């Protein structure tokens, strides 16, 4: 124990004796570790952000839109060549047990007027299950009813951004607004939801009964997108499978004959996985950068340790003459290399956290100080010290004391 503290003392003393050189040597490690910590933190922050945004879509969320899936992804031209009908929605609602809630939706954009204020926003047509699927509560008033939907009643629920822009601090419930010059009565206000995964403002929306939007505003017969909520998280794959079978049967699609589905399904899990996959690719890239920096840093340490061994040949000779064994010398130089690497690692962690916090502040991401990442960076830098300090240390320990003492 005493010996260990002695070696540590000697190592740190020799490091502080050459402050600038030690700092420059450690720079490779500092950059490498800062890179690891910052990127892990930033990546993790961005991932958490994306995750919370996908969570905000709703619970056990399933989305069915018209158009086939091609190898390059989904065809997004739904609405123009729609193959989903209201009876499809009814079939899902009545036949599939694993689906808890389902709603036909349709979407358009329109100019909205209240008093002398006007605002251009998205109009979302949905059925009564809509807020349940999106897990979106009302902050005041009530959601429209099934009767409102069937009667195509001119009622609507406002998102927070719309409220802000049309009403300011006024209470909108009970007021009448005009959408495309048609008067709508405001029955409720939605909670604040925040930005979506794609970066758009989810609160900039007006939700009206599906039938109202379809008939009164758009004048179409097609269902835009069907959204649904599986009964539980475990039921999502089952629900997905059952909906697929049902729609194939209803649309008379023969997969065996090579016919393509005329609809595409996305689940929340899939969307999340896709985002995670992208994050994964990014992190591989970052890890390889960090790896290269650590390698270069390690080579720097090896180089400076070899220089140090040559420079201090006499010192090694003296230490051996007065009783240092080979392993004492080896331990000394190894500990010096590790001390260099760990000091670099610690400074790197500090720098990395600083970068991470700065980036997170400017990007508005949640700061994720990942303790695993910090620990990993620390262990990595120590390993680099051992790996690249070993050869110089071995070389030092094998010096012949007589030769070493004679060295000029």
């Amino acid at each position: 124990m005493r010996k260990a503290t002695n070696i540590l003392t000697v190592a740190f003393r020799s490091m502080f004796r050459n402050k600038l050189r030690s700092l420059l040597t450690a720079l490779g490690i500092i950059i490498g570790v800062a890179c690891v910590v910052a990127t892990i933190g930033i990546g993790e922050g961005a991932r958490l952000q994306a995750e919370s945004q996908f969570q905000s879509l709703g619970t056990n969320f399933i989305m069915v839109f018209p158009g086939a899936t091609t190898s390059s992804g989904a065809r997004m031209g739904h609405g123009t060549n729609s193959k989903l009908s209201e009876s499809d929605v009814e079939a899902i609602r009545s036949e599939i047990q694993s689906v808890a809630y389902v709603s036909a939706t349709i979407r358009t954009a329109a100019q909205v007027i209240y008093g002398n204020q006007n605002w251009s926003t998205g109009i979302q047509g949905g059925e009564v299950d809509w807020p349940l699927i999106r897990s979106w509560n009302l902050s005041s008033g009530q959601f429209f009813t099934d009767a409102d939907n069937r009667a195509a009643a001119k009622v609507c629920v406002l998102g927070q951004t719309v409220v802000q822009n049309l009403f300011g601090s006024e209470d909108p419930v009970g007021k009448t607004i005009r959408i495309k010059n048609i008067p709508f009565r405001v029955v409720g206000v939605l909670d604040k939801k925040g930005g979506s995964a794609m970066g758009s403002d989810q609160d900039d929306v007006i939700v009206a009964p599906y039938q109202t939007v379809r008939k009164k505003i758009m004048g179409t017969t097609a269902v835009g997108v069907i959204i649904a909520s599986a009964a539980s998280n475990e039921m999502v794959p089952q629900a997905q499978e059952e909906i697929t079978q049902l729609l194939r049967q209803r649309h008379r699609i023969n997969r065996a004959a090579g016919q393509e589905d005329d609809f595409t399904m996305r689940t929340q899990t899939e969307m999340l996985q896709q985002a995670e996959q992208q994050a994964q690719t990014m992190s591989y890239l970052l890890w390889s950068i960090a790896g290269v920096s650590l390698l270069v840093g390690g080579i720097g340490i090896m180089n400076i340790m070899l220089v140090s061994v040559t420079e201090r040949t006499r010192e090694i000779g003296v230490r051996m003459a007065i009783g240092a064994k080979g392993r004492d010398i080896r331990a000394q130089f190894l500990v010096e290399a590790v001390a260099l690497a760990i000091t670099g690692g610690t400074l790197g962690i500090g720098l990395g956290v600083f970068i991470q916090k700065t980036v997170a502040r400017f990007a508005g991401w949640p700061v994720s100080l990942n303790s695993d990442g910090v620990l990993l960076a620390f262990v990595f830098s120590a390993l680099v010290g051992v790996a690249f300090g070993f050869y110089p240390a071995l070389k030092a320990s094998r010096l012949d004391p007589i030769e070493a003492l004679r060295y000029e």
Partner: protein
Amino acid sequence: MPAPVIEIRDLTRVYKMGETEVRALNGVSLTVARGEFVAVMGPSGSGKSTFMNIIGCLDRPTSGTYILDGVDVSRLSRDERAEIRNDKIGFVFQNFNLLSRTSALENVELPLLYSKKAPATTKERDARAKACLSIVGLEGRSDHTPSQLSGGQQQRVAIARSLVNDPTILLADEPTGNLDSKTSDDVMSVFQRLNEEGRTVILITHEHDIAEYAKRVVVFKDGQVLTDTPVVKRRLVAAEVSR
């Protein structure tokens, strides 16, 4: 007669330089009793450096035995010799060999770093090193680094370092080689005083007037002991060596 500290029988050391063999030591026998002050002299190539390396356990003889303080050290491994050096031998070098940018006190404490018998606490180690510094008259210079000390002072720090593990022999290799004659006298007086106090001193030198400080002079030539004579008075030694 006191028990011998060093007992050497038929010591040889052969270096292989490619095909040829160089016999640096060729059948050296020597006994040194406790409390002696022996000067080893000889021209370069006489084998005195090889002899010193073996006496100091830095090297092993090719054949023959070397018994130091009752222990046969002529066949010991590298690590075992390191322990012997730490425990029984106090080295003093020509160029002092102090660690630069390291205080005198820390330099003196250096052998304790590798010692099994060293005191456990920093306080005790500091006390021991300070005691050694005061033996050589440098008690006020503990915090000075070698660059802040004169050559003579540096050599005295080195002597303090050699004393810190209470060695059986002091082995001084040309300790005055880098010093002027006045400082040489100072340093040699330290050795004489230590010898008066009972310390066995082996001094390697090529300067006659330095050898005259010893009690006995051994002259090497061609790997063998040429003469081994006690110093009766100064003139005698000088006459002997210059013959």
